[in-house]
């Protein structure tokens, strides 16, 4: 069987899906395609199914909270980002897709389309990102929390989530802490 030689994912995607790419980052030998949220599903299907690309394995989905999106290094277009780390078993190379997404003006959660229909393995990965970062994956068949208890308030990996619920004890503040510490009764 003749295997088509590998083609450049940047050129292929920008030629086949004009307007889908926000920008491209190449750093330390890694390629990141920053994708517009509206075109995510099309890009994901395209890089999986096109001969010469065949990125057929979803390694991981990770979400990032940049907290101060504008300015700084990279000049982020939005507060949250979702990364899709995908791998081509055929050509032994990796690609990262990235979408930036912001909270709604009314404080509603950021929404990203679910890729479960393309990669079923993304189900739990999306649930983890949804649990920890509060990103809604629209179309995910199971919207429950994955790691935290079901009645948990908030999303622990967000930058504005408190680190711990008890101040570190020192000799000068131990009495203050003990006053608020809940102790179990028999």
């Amino acid at each position: 069987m003749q295997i088509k030689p590998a083609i450049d994912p940047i050129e292929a995607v920008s030629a086949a899906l004009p307007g889908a790419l926000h920008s491209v980052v190449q750093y330390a030998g890694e390629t990141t395609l920053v994708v517009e949220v509206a075109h995510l599903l099309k890009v994901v299907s395209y890089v999986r199914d096109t001969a010469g690309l065949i990125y057929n394995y979803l390694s991981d989905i990770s979400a990032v909270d940049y907290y101060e999106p504008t300015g700084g290094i990279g000049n982020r277009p939005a507060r949250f980002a979702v990364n899709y780390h995908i791998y081509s078993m055929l050509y032994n190379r990796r690609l990262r897709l990235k979408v930036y997404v912001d909270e709604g003006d009314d404080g509603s959660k950021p929404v990203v389309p679910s890729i479960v229909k393309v990669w079923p393995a993304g189900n739990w990965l999306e649930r983890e990102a949804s649990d920890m970062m509060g990103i809604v994956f629209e179309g995910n068949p199971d919207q429950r929390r994955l790691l935290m208890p079901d009645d948990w308030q908030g999303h622990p990996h967000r930058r504005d989530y408190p680190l711990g619920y008890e101040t570190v004890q020192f000799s000068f503040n131990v009495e203050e802490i003990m006053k608020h510490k809940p102790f179990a009764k028999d």
Partner: protein
Amino acid sequence: MGVTQKLGDLGVVTTTLETAINWARTGATWPLLFGLACCAIEYMSTQGGRYDLARFGMELNRASPRQADLMIVAGRVTRKMAPVVRNLYDQMANPKWVIAMGDCASCGGVYNNYAVVQGVDEIIPVDVYVAGCPPRPEQLMHGILTLQEKIMGEKIKDWA
């Protein structure tokens, strides 16, 4: 034929009911079989042949909380695990005791974050705290002997 006739004159020991009951409880305090983290490894080592917890009558782990008298919380308790630990404690029959083994069970240890309970005493009453990360088997045995001292000092009038 009574004991005195069979073995000779053994004399008479007088004691209080309190002391007799407390003495009986110390030697057969069976721990509940569960471990939560790396402290459980030291706990297993304590019960192994080298340190031999059987000397104190406490080597027999019960896998059912109905048969256990002592809960050794060996490891960090996450907020998700806390209801389970409390449920196990509630299922144990009275009298029951708790040893918080290690820094994590005693005060949260290095895990001062949203996920870990800052001391298991927030969910169940603790009798003895054993420091260490993890405590060596000798330290756990010292904690167990301290608990036995505490049991020996219990008063009937304090029992519910």
